[in-house]
């Protein structure tokens, strides 16, 4: 597994608690609530009591468990300062209560706490399960014990080997006694770490794919629109100029066009990136450099026809300069076509960027759908059947392409009356 990318800038702990390679939570509808979805309990009932220099802060987290697989962990997070005796107890639906944690923390400055309770409570779990086991627990069992399986299972014989889920309301009671002048405890959260997460699951680092997908929208739009607009604008101007000036200018421009058109995009990009990894804008620039050739031929042939129009002849007779004729008379005729071209060029640009990112040549600091797919491939998502990592980004690319295709094809139909079907 690769290192998470540097430069992503965010608080790396944001996905620390998320399960890795977890599917979307709505998968539960189809599997009959087999897996535990990740839940963030952020609003406990908090109680505070001050007695001189010490305070007693209590918090009660309520959680309803109705799944087959136990949560992976219960992670307690808070920000605190001072000398703190932290006690956490779990109240099960069957009325049994156990202690999960009883520890003293010495915090001289404001500290962000992150306490995975599962590890802390292993011994308690053993104690709890012991009475229901015939005979002593083997070392193997001890070592492979997962405390959460015990806590969320029905208390009965064989609960270690074949745990039956105990469904119902649970309460996690936190009692903290703080000593110290500026001691405080705040921002208490309990994360129920699950097997499935969110709308689109997580990737190998636990990052929420839904957020990634949404983040990619703006990049896709940016790349698509900028590339399409610039390349079509350049292409149209180029084609019109070539058509209008004719003669050797036309011949020269067309030869240059031939050369550019024959250069394959991907190999050159690969070569260039062997020297330096292209940044986001360099990538856009390079795409424009290749995509401008698209409309040139058609625009040129339209331009050639426009040039023969009587109004162009009249304008020339009136002494209009070439520039004026091009911009006043010819370009306006091409604007509708240009817009249709731009609309239809956007999907191409988006897919190209995705392709480039997929093979790892894209800008790694930017979250685009192509980057997500690159990570997916690099972490063997296809082999592991992690469809939630692969399908959504591609689907979104296709959706964006489809949107612009609808617009572009509609414009095509409007521009070319022969294609109307009514």
């Amino acid at each position, binding site marked *: 597994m690769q290192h998470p990318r540097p430069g992503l800038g965010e608080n790396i702990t944001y996905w620390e608690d998320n399960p890795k390679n977890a599917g979307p939570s709505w998968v539960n509808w189809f599997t009959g609530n087999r897996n535990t979805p990740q839940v963030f309990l952020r609003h406990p009932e908090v109680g505070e009591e001050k007695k001189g220099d010490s305070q007693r802060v209590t918090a009660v987290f309520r959680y309803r468990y109705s799944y087959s697989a136990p949560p992976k962990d219960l992670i307690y997070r808070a920000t605190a300062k001072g000398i703190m005796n932290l006690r956490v107890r779990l109240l099960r639906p069957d009325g049994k209560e156990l202690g999960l944690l009883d520890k003293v923390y010495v915090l001289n400055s404001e500290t962000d706490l992150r306490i995975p309770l599962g590890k802390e409570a292993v011994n308690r779990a053993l104690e709890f399960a012991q009475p229901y086991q015939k005979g002593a627990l083997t070392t193997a069992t001890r070592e492979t014990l997962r405390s959460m399986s015990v806590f969320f299972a029905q208390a009965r014989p064989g609960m270690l080997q074949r745990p039956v889920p105990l469904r119902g309301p649970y309460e996690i009671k936190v009692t903290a006694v703080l000593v110290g002048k500026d001691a405080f405890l705040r921002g208490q959260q309990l994360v129920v770490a699950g097997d499935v997460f969110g709308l689109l699951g997580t990737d190998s680092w636990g990052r929420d794919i839904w957020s990634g997908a949404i983040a990619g929208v703006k990049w896709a739009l940016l790349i698509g629109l900028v590339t399409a607009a610039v390349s079509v604008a350049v292409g149209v101007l180029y084609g019109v100029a070539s058509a209008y000036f004719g003669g050797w200018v036309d011949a020269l421009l067309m030869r240059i066009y031939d050369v550019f058109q024959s250069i394959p995009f991907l190999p050159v990009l*690969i070569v260039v990136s062997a020297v330096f990894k292209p940044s986001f804008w360099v990538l856009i620039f390079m795409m424009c450099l290749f995509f401008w050739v698209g409309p040139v*031929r058609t625009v040129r042939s339209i331009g050639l026809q426009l040039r023969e129009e009587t109004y162009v002849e009249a304008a020339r007779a009136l002494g209009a300069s070439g520039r004026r004729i091009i911009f006043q008379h010819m370009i306006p005729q091409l604007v509708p076509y240009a817009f249709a071209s731009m609309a239809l060029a956007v999907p191409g640009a988006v897919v190209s960027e995705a392709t480039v990112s*997929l093979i790892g040549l894209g800008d790694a600091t930017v979250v685009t759908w192509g980057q997500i797919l690159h990570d997916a491939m690099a972490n063997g998502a*296809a082999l592991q059947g992690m469809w939630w990592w692969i399908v959504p980004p591609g689907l979104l690319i296709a959706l964006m392409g489809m949107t612009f295709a609808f617009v572009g094809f509609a414009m095509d139909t409007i521009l070319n009356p022969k294609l109307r079907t009514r």
Partner: protein
Amino acid sequence: MYWKYAVRRLIHVALTYVVIIFIFSALFNTVMETTLRAQITERVQGEIVSRTQRMAPEQLARFREERTQHYIKLYHLDEPVALRIFWRAVRTLSFDFGNSTIITSSSGERKVSVIVAEAIPRTILLFTVAVLIDIVVGVAIGIKQAQKPGGSLDRATSMATMVVYGLPTWWLAMVLIMLLVYKIALFPSGGMHSVPPPSGFAYYLDFLHHLALPVLTLVVVGFWGRAYLTRNIVLGTLQEDFIMAARARGLPESKVLYGHTMRTAAPPIVTMATLSILFSIGGGLIFEGIFSWPGMGRIAATEIGAGHPVQHTHGHRNRRRHQADPGGPFAPAMAPLQMSRPQESVPARSRTRHRPPPAAGRAKKTASFPTRTAVTLIS
């Protein structure tokens, strides 16, 4: 009568090819120089490390100098840039690509030209077969669409065309592999043959089995664009006066459609088909990679993956050492293929002699940007 035109075009193609090769040469040179120098430093460093114990510091410094110079000479880095570009271009034009360290052909050859010569047919096989199926299906459906414009087939397929427009083929490949290879084991996961390949008739069946999924993926994404284009062209033609006149003469619809309409609509459709076939030769780098298809794309992918754009051959001092270009096998091979498309819709194989000159205006208007993008997206 068209010979003069054809000859002129060929000369253009040749000239453009030479220009491109020079451009590539210049490009690769810049790349290679940087990495080469870095590599030389590395190598020399490596050589020094093993000798630090035995030699004194000044000796080491001299040694370093010597070795660096040796390598610089070896890779001709001491020659002026222009000269190097020139010679590289010449070598490429004479198809002398040198050897590769990381890839061998199936016969164990290291000559890049052999490797490439082996890989190109495989790429062509995959993509051209797909394109041919594409064209046949696409044109057939396009004609049907044009017969009843606005009808249910037309609307449904137009919708599908737009949906598929922005769909990356390699992504669909990934999804289909997940579905049809890992979830339901219908197709093999990649490559051209099973390992070890079966013999006799089963060999060909096995090959087809491996060919099936990639071709299926390509066709599923590809034929819509062609159908849409055909539909538009045919629809445009159907509105012409002479079609109405043909119908008025009592000719049956099949004759009107397949005879008069298709014959007239043929030039742009043939252009599209020919362009598609030629573009298909360019293959798809990513696509081949996903299916581990041993074609041009895989070679390029391996080259990239190796990270070192430059390799050289060890030993055999008596042989002149050439360098394998990064994408070297790829680009020069691609360039002529990219350029050999017909520049205009010259009807090369019309049976009739007095063919009207290529209807440049009309053909261009219909082979519009959507085509171009659609065709480019295919590859």
